[in-house]
Each structure stands twice: as C-alpha cells, then as structure tokens.
C-alpha cells in the first residue's frame, strides 16, 4: 500500500518533469482527428487529421486520406478548430513582471541612444508569470524586444512560450535589431534647445549615420587586423621592421551592428508619422538595411510608397489613436489598407499609445480579428499573427502553418481563433500538451471552491 502510493507519486512527478521538458523527452505520436484545420498555408480542412511525431507535424490532411499510425494517441477534436500557434511580433516577455515595479523591469538601457550591444537574451526571465497567461490563449511563440526608448535599443530574441528553462525557450538570439525614430524618441538632450546632443531629430539621424559610418570603418580595420593575424609566421618574419603591434581591441557596440549593415539580419524600425517614416527609410536605404517597419500608425498618406519599398510591416497597435482631424477608423483600417497594396503584414498585441504591454499579449488574436472588422480578409489576418511573423524573423520553414515537417505548435479551440468569445481548450508546443494552468487559473480555482 505504502509502496504503491509512493510509486504513483514517483510516476506523477516524472510525468510533470516530462511535460516541462519538451526537447529532452519527445512525446509519443499524436493524431488530432475530426477538427476543422486552419492550415494558414493551404486553406481550411473541415474534417481533418493532424499527426504529430517527435514534436513535428508528420501528416496533415482530410479524414480518410491520412493514415493514423498504429500506437498514436488519438485526440478527438470534433467541434474544435485546430490551428498553428499564434506568434506575437513584439513583446517584452521576461523583461518585465509588474510594470510599476522598477525592480522587475529590464526594458531598456537609457544611458545612450545607441545600444546595439544590449542582448535581450541576457535579461530574459523565462519563468515570468506572463508567459503561461498568454499561452493559454494560444500564443506559442513571440519576438521579445527591448522597450522602444533608444534609437537603437538592442537585439531581439525569438522564443517559444514553453520549456524547462531559457535555453529551451529561446529559439533564436539576436534575430533582429530594434530601432526607433520619431518625435517622442528619447534623446539625452531632451527636446530641443538643451545643452546635450542630440536634442532634435536632426541630431538623432546624424548620430545614427555617424554610427553606421563608424561601424563600416571599424569593420574594415577589424578585418585588416584579422587578416594580419592569419598571415603565416615566415611571411611575418620577412617584414623589414619588427614593430610592436597593439593587439586589436574589439568594440562590442560597433561589432554588434556589423551583420545588420551587411543586411544579414532584419532591422525592426519603430516609427509612427509619415514624414518620420520617410526620413528613416532614406537612412535605411543609404546603408542597405533589411527593414521591417513597425507601427506606421499615421502613414495613411504614404501607403503606396510603403508598398513600393517592399518591406514587411508590423502593425502595432491597431488600437493607436487617430489624429484629431482623422476619422475614428483611420488606424483600425491600416492593416486592410496595407494588405490591399500587397504589403506583408504582421499584427502585434500592443495596447494603444505606444509601449508594448506584454500582459495583453493574450489579446493578440483579437487585434487580428479587429483588423478583419475593418476590412482585412480573414486569411490575411490569421497569417499576420502566424506565418508572416515566422517568415519576417527567419522561422518560416519551422513555424506558422500546419505543414508537414514544421514544429508541432498547435492550438485547439472551441471556435474562431480571432473571436473574443472563443475559448482555447488545449495548446501543444513541440507536440507536448502544455498544462492549461497559469497563476491566474490557480487563483480562479482556489476561490471557486
């Protein structure tokens, strides 16, 4: 008796440990049957089968056309909608816990406008309470960016919202550079007429341009120094005058920008007003940056131009306020207006008025749904919180749609994923059924007794 209960305790603990460590313990094969599959990449399958093996999607298709492997655990999803986990393109997950509590914030380093060597992975608190809360509404992946105070705020990470520790949750480090520009941009001189540089947008742009030139100069010197080091010894010996050469000193700030100036990784530029967008895009063009535009809240007058740039755009927040002379839906209709012009869009969960509120990340699907209310085709809205985000940040081959070979981040819900009334029933991340609990469900259950 005693032994049995002890044993069952061991098994239970083991099971929990398994659930918390998706990568070290791949789950058994799963077949999710009878659900309505929103594949994102190839339409809707009304009565579908999705097979998961080794944390990946092994098969997807209509019932009867997909073999359910022997030994697979069958999940009956009749009456449920099955779709890929949602991806939030801008969050502060793990950089804040209680916004008003400064001790819990690692949002931005405000000592300088140019802070590319700030790596979000150095601050990412994987055990934050915010992640389970968002996960329960079907958010399975996110970009974590520093807050938008600095012209160059740091480098983003791409995460999955489940794992034993930060190493399992961070799927990509330094996936993008976070840049910001505009009237409200933090500048150490304050706004205009102060003693410190920069204090104007002229100053901010000049500071950025000089930084990029410094990086190019640095890169040339660094490469030359590395080349010298590579020379064979006998060749070095032939040099006439054996001089005392100082070893090359790496500058982490400048070095951080090298891959971005080579266009190897995207630069996410947060900017709101049309004229500011044009200013910063001119600079980006000058240095051949690979741009993802963010916000573009008041770009209604230059939408055709934005489309012509052929850069992806994150709309966040769709809830930002129109200007006083604009119609009430000027911003609500922005995703539709951009998509209509062929722009690849993502939608973020940001609340109105600027700063990201990762506490609201669980409302990401509703922001996408609201874009549908104001004219965005439904399929485009779903893409804007799944596949498009994955593609923008280099995970298009792994995430964002129900396709064979992709990571099995799957959500089962009792209705339309973009509707506020819909309840998410189960979330799978890397094929593991994530426990549907958060600190909030525990409080609910405790006080429902």
């Amino acid at each position, binding site marked *: 008796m005693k032994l049995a209960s002890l044993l069952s305790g061991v098994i239970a603990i083991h099971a929990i440990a398994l659930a918390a460590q998706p990568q070290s313990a791949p789950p058994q094969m799963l077949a999710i049957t009878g659900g309505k599959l929103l594949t994102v990449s190839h339409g809707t399958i009304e009565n579908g089968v999705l097979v998961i093996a080794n944390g990946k999607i092994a098969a997807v298709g209509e019932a009867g056309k997909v073999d359910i492997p022997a030994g697979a655990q069958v999940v009956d999803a009749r009456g449920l909608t099955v779709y890929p986990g949602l991806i939030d393109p801008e969050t502060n997950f793990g950089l804040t816990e209680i916004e008003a509590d400064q001790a819990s914030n690692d949002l931005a380093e405000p000592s300088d406008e140019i802070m590319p060597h700030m790596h979000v992975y150095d601050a990412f608190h994987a055990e934050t309470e915010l992640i389970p809360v968002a996960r329960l509404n079907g958010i399975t992946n996110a970009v974590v960016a520093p807050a938008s105070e600095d012209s160059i705020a740091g480098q983003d990470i791409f995460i999955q919202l489940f794992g034993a520790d930060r190493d399992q949750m961070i799927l990509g480090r330094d996936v993008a550079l976070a840049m910001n520009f505009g009237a409200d941009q933090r500048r150490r001189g304050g706004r205009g007429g102060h003693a410190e540089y920069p204090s104007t947008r002229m100053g901010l742009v000049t500071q950025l341009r000089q930084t990029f030139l410094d990086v190019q100069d640095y890169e040339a010197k660094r490469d030359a120094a590395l080349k010298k080091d590579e020379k064979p010894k006998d060749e070095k010996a032939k040099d006439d005058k054996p001089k005392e050469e100082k070893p090359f000193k790496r500058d982490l700030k400048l070095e951080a920008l090298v891959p971005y100036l080579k266009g190897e990784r995207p630069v996410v530029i947060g900017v709101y007003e049309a004229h500011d967008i044009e200013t910063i895009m001119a600079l980006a063009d000058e240095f051949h940056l690979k741009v993802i535009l963010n916000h573009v809240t008041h770009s209604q007058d230059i939408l055709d131009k934005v489309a012509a740039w052929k850069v992806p755009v994150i709309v966040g927040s769709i809830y930002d306020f129109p200007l006083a002379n604009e119609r009430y839906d000027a911003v609500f209709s922005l995703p539709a207006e951009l998509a209509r012009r062929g722009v690849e869009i993502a939608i973020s969960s940001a609340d109105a008025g600027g700063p990201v509120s990762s506490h609201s990340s669980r409302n990401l699907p509703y922001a996408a749904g609201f874009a549908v209310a104001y004219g965005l085709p439904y399929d485009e809205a779903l893409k804007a919180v799944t596949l498009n985000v994955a593609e923008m940040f280099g995970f298009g081959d792994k995430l964002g749609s129900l396709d064979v070979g992709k990571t099995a981040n799957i959500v089962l819900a009792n209705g339309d994923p973009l509707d506020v009334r819909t309840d998410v029933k189960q979330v799978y991340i890397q094929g593991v059924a994530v426990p549907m609990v958060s600190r909030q469900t525990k*409080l609910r259950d405790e006080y429902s007794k």
Partner: protein
Amino acid sequence: MPHIAPALSSWPGRRIALASALVCALAFVSAAQQPQPADLVIKNATVMTASHGTVANGAVWVHAGKIAGVGAEVSAPPSATVIDATGLWLTPGIIDPHSHSALDGDVNEATSPVTPAMHMIDAFDNRDKALYQALAGGVTTELLLHGSANMIGGQAVVIKNKFGLGRDEMLFPDAPGSIKFASGENPKRVYGSRDQLPSTRMGNFAVMRQAFEDAKPYMAEWDAYNAKVAKGDKTATAPKKDLKLEALADVLRGKLYVQIHCYRADEFLTEEAIAHEYGYTIRAFHHALEMYKVVDKVVPDETAIATFTDWWGFKDEARDAIPWNAVMCMRRGMRVALKSDSNDHIRRLNQEAGKMIHYGGATEDEAIRMVTLNPAWIIGVDDRTGSIDVGKDADLVLWNRDPLSTYARAQKVWIDGDLFFDASLPGFGTPHFSGAMHDAGGFGGEDEEDGQ
C-alpha cells in the same frame, strides 16, 4: 474593402478645403431644416434588449426620443420612418461607468488627499476627440470621474455622448450626483512621494476617517440651524458655508453615490466597514480586481463593481487580477459592470463584454448587461437608459455583426432618438458635428494616475 475607404483617403484634404464653408451651412441644415422624425421604426433586427432577452427579427419604435415599442411587432403610425435592419443587431447604447475622457488632463486635483468640492464638469471639454471615438464605438452615456490620486476626489459628471452639441446639452439631465473615492497605491504614492500624509494604507484610511469627523460638527451646526428655521426662528444665523465640508456632509447624508477606486480584497472590507461606521453606502467599487476573493462578504451591502475584463499586472495591487473575476462575482449575486478607464478600451466595450462568454461562460444576455443596464445602475440612471424597454430614452446602437464578437462595427448610434453617429456618412460620420476636434491628450489608461 469597407465602403468608408474612399471617404477616408479623401477626407483630410477635403476637410481643409471645405470645412470653413461647410461649418455654418451644415449646422444650420441639421439644426433647423432636418428635425428628427417624431416616429422611427427599426425593424427586422436582432434586438438585444439587455432586460428581457433577445428578440430575433425584432422591431423597436422610437417616439419623441423615447422607446415606444419593442417586440416582434410594434404599432407605430404609418408616417414613421422605417429602417430595415435585416442582418443587423440592435442594442441599448453602451454605458461606461468609469471614464476620464474629455477632461483635458484635469483628472486629479492632487494638491490634497481630500478634495470633495471639485466638480468634473468644470473641466469637461465637449469637443474632445475621445468622445467622438467612443461614440463611434456605440458609447452613449459616460460617468466622467475624478482620478484616484486622492482618497476623496471630486464629484463626477454624467454625460450623454451627444457629440457636436454644446457642453450643457451633453449633460445627462437630472442624473444623480456621484463622488469618487480612492484607496491603495495611488494616494499613498502621490502624497508619500512628497513626504506627506498619506504614504501608507494606514495613512490613507486615517485621512478618510478624519475627513468625516471634520464634517460631523459642520453638519450638526447646519442641522441645528435648519431646525431653528423650520420652527420659524427668524433670529437664527446661518453658519458659514464650506464647500469641502458641505460635500463631505452630502456623503454622510447619502446625497451622493460613492464610487470607490479599490483593488485589493482587504480594502473592500475596510471600505465597507468605514461606510457602515459613518452611515453611508457604497454604490460601486471600481477596478475591484480582487473582488472574487471576498465577494460573499460584500454582496449583502449591495455594492456593485465596475471592473476591467483582463488588465492585470500593471502594478502590485493588480497582480492577482484574473479575467474570470466579473463572471465569478456575478454568479455569487453581485451586480457587475465592465468599464474602460481608458480612451482606448472605451471604443470597444462591446468586445470586452464578449470576452465574458470566454472567461466564465456568461450568457449573451448577461454579457451585454455588463456594458449597458448594470453600468446604468451604478450611475443611477437605469430607470432612464441601459435597456430597450418602453418608456426609456431611445439610446440605441445598430451593429453590422454580433456586438459580442470581435467583428462588430457600430453603424448608427441614436441618443434620445436623435442620430449622432452614422458610419455610412462621409467624413467623421457625425450628423451634428463638422468642426474641429480637440486633441486633449487625455487618459491612456493603465491607471497610472500620478497627479503630476
């Protein structure tokens, strides 16, 4: 694409070119030459009454600004203007019991923790764009409250969102008075940061109790004087009027609805205890994020709550917020309203109501009531608005989709039977407004009321 797109892209230029020429003409036309029809019928709509369920294919008859009939059929005169609302939804106007819109930043008189003589009407800017944006979200009535920097703040103003009319025409006629109290982090932060009392919750409540003690002798003096006058004593001299003490006395006399900003479970109980001690009742706790912990203890006092759906974690006292709070409290017998406290969320309170189906399984009826009839009760105007019932004000919203979904847009908004928003119109869609809006900056939310 939505049919408003062309109007949208051409609007700013057109406005600049024609605005000055049109302002006078439009104002004249709408005021003088196009009086609202005496009778209006909206038929074939899905009518969500908020008081007695939903009528599929229902009709509502509006006569002289009031609801004259509602049901499968109405017996309006043949002269009535008829709107065929096939495929559309009709609800009562959305009511926000906690807004700081249109105060041009004058939300907190944060110079003393007790400022009951402040009247929000003195800061009301009836041309604030936030009012327009809320109107386009179907909001017809708002309670504009003082902020939460002070333990006892100012007296609220109740407005009907008749955007485009003058300040006085936007006031809700004969609405009961409300006064805003606060508690918890905000007062102690605002005054504590200046090394003033209060800087703790002990200080908060000490300040509040002393304020009522101050009011008691003042009230007694006036009671004695009034008694003398009633007896015909012509020698009695009136005590000096003190606006602050007078307002506090009005709380003790039960003349003002007490609306309390309060988050934590322990503080609801303290507030109720103080209310019992001084003999007033609390109309509603606002925010009330931890009410689910002590709801059974508060229900007997019949205090309602006006709560957020799912905001949490923005400060310590919001840490235990859960999105099931509203429905859990409702199921235990509490009257529950949702509110915005934000110029953002006020534009989509209907969606916040929809979330209650998700978080706790509210019925559609219960959900819509949380943004109509229940907030009307908190404000004290539930006998006039908040549901589609005969005799009530014709405050109505016509929606293109189920208003509890993510996808609904308000098509038309009537207040007292008069059309104040029509999405099919070019420009702003406001039959009564064609001027310049004020960009008051306003209140973004997050409850960061620092009083600076």
